[in-house]
């Protein structure tokens, strides 16, 4: 694809898109009981952020935004690994993956 083409459309569309994904992610995190789905919603939120970053990096014509996106993806990988590990361990002990049954962490 041609390198020097200008941004095909105003950046607002990208912002709106990422906003939509972000909101959906928030809803998922807040409402679903299943921890795994919550995690997936978090991934969704991270993705929304990525879209923003890449859009702006495209707009400024510098790759910094993409670098940040890469770091975010790395982060997501790490987070997913650890979180899923925890979920597995928890599932082995308690036979459940429901968020509101994981309430031992209080007082």
């Amino acid at each position: 694809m041609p390198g020097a083409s200008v941004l095909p459309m105003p950046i607002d569309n990208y912002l709106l898109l990422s906003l939509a994904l972000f909101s959906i992610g928030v809803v998922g995190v807040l409402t679903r009981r299943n921890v795994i789905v919550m995690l997936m919603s978090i991934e969704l939120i991270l993705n929304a952020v990525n879209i923003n970053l890449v859009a702006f990096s495209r707009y400024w014509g510098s790759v910094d935004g993409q670098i940040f996106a890469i770091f975010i993806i790395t982060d997501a990988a790490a987070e997913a690994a650890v979180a899923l590990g925890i979920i597995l361990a928890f599932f082995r002990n308690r036979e459940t993956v429901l968020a509101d049954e994981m309430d031992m962490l209080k007082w």
Partner: protein
Amino acid sequence: MNAPLPYFLDHIWLIPLFPLVTAATMLFFGRRLKNDVVSGLCVGSVFLSFIYAVGAFFQLVSLPVDERVASKVLFDWIPPIAYHAVDGSLKLFSAQWGFQLDPLSVVMILIVTGVGLLIHIYSTGYMAHEGGYYRFFGYLNLFMFSMLMLVLANNMLVMFVGWEGVGTCSYLLIGFYFHKKSASDAGKKAFIVNRIGDAGFLLGIFLTSALLGTINFNDIGKALAAGHFAIGDPRITGIALLLFVGAAGKSAQIPLYVWLPDAMEGPTPVSALIHAATMVTAGVYMVTRMNYVYQLAPTAMEVVAVIGAVTAIFAASIGVVQNDIKKVLAYSTISQLGYMFLACGVGAFTAGIFHLMTHAFFKGLLFLAAGSVIHALSGEQDMRKMGGLSKKIPVTYWTMLIATLAIAGIFPFAGFLSKDLILGKTYEKDVMLWAIGYFTAGMTSFYMFRLIFLTFNGKSRVEPEVEHHIHESPRSMLIPLVILAVLSIVGGWLSWPEIFGGNSRFIHFLEPVVAVPHLAREEATKGLGSRMSEIRLMLLSEMLVVLGVFFAWYLYLKHTDLPAKIEKKLNGFYELVYHKYYVDEIYDAMFVNRAKDLGLALGAFDRNIIDGLGVNGVGWMTRFISRLSMWWDTWIVDGSVRLGARIIWLLSFPVRMIQDGEMQDYMLLIVIGLIGFIAYYFHLVRAAAH
């Protein structure tokens, strides 16, 4: 050296390096390696050193006679330190990590690497079935390194490093079978006795640097050559005597010889390499190296000569009655060392070194052959349980016989030439000393042939269960024997004396080292007395030697019952000699036990006064005080803390209401907070707008 040195001379520092590297390898990773790898590495490194030594020798010889000194400084070891010498002048003490190669040290490295190589090869056969193979070779190579450092050093401090190194290695190797108590004790004994000598050596070094302001051999030579010191200057004599103490310790001279016989506890190759061929001759080497000091101190020379002579005959007399084959060899080593010191004492340093070389050959051979005998008899060392082996292990027999002829001084074997050189020199100096050496020669031939006859000839007294698996040693052990046998025949011919139409090449080769410019070099110049007297001397000693052989034959082959009778006859004297004149016991009574008593006394003091009053008293005080502070802690400090905790617990009630442990509630809170922030941001924007 201003002119660039040829390769080998420029790289003499590699010669000690090779064994060091392999030694390190052995001691760090040896456990992992297979035996053949170990032997390959170690023997290989020594072989490399040997090659370099030979190369260095030839390149040194190729130099003109006056410039046969190659020194190589690797780096500064001790940076110059200013201090006042005894004459009040300001001197700089500095030591370099430097090496020096002159005829003397080249001879030494040739002996060390050559004999060392042979003994390494021998050991691969001898130690093949022992545990700790890699350990043995690691120590052995470490020893090679130290010994080469010792002989290659260009100043006393580096020499001292090597000196201590060989001491350590000899300790390690004597105690190689550390599970045997006698072995580890012998190791300790050797180490401690050596310490005494080393202390003397160290003091000698101090005195030297205090007096002459340098410890570099050449500079010492120059400083003395400057002629500030008259002959017999007491300070020089002091240095000489102190150094000789060190030499006596290392080379087992009276009164410090006691460790050498016990050192025979070590494996036989070790006895051959360290306690016959190389290390014990370090003293002789050092005395020769410092000869210009000695030549300024006639008194010290006399001391050296006398001690050498006495040691020679003393040790020989003990050797006559020992029954342990290695013990006999040990005592003969001591007495041969006595010869060398005798030579040095009468100023025939070159003769001493010459004897050192030949002795290295035949004594090394004797030990190796003895080892082969022991190997054949699966560990038997008592000559009374041997006999008639000559048929069963012929190679060992013949080689050992050659060595014996050499040491006994039969014409024209190596021993004869070197020994008679010494005797001749001695005769010129002092007839008394000559007589002692002369009789020692006779006794030498006697006990050596006693050894041969008891071991190889006559009828077998071997125990039956040992009898039937007597076997000749593997080839790896025999080859060194043969080579050494050849050497101990021809080795002496290097300096075929003038009277037999030779030209003492070896002696002349060494002369530059002992040449002392400012002395009238009468020793060096004034040939070997008049021909006739020399011939006469030789004939005399030959006759005595043959007589010794005859006695040995008469007593131990012809009338084998006679020795017992003689023992009966002069029982007391026999006992005295058999127990080595009770020297060990005397030493125990005089020093060892006193030291133990002192230790006990100190121990008691420590226990009662220091521990009792000091430590325990303090402990009691501490406990008392800690009680008080404990009470304080419990009631005052903790009390207040608990009070605070209780208050906070009460206050924190509403906060805990929020924390119900459900993550999604937390998230809800987060979102609420987020909303709050954004709302506040709007508010700010509006405020800014207005």
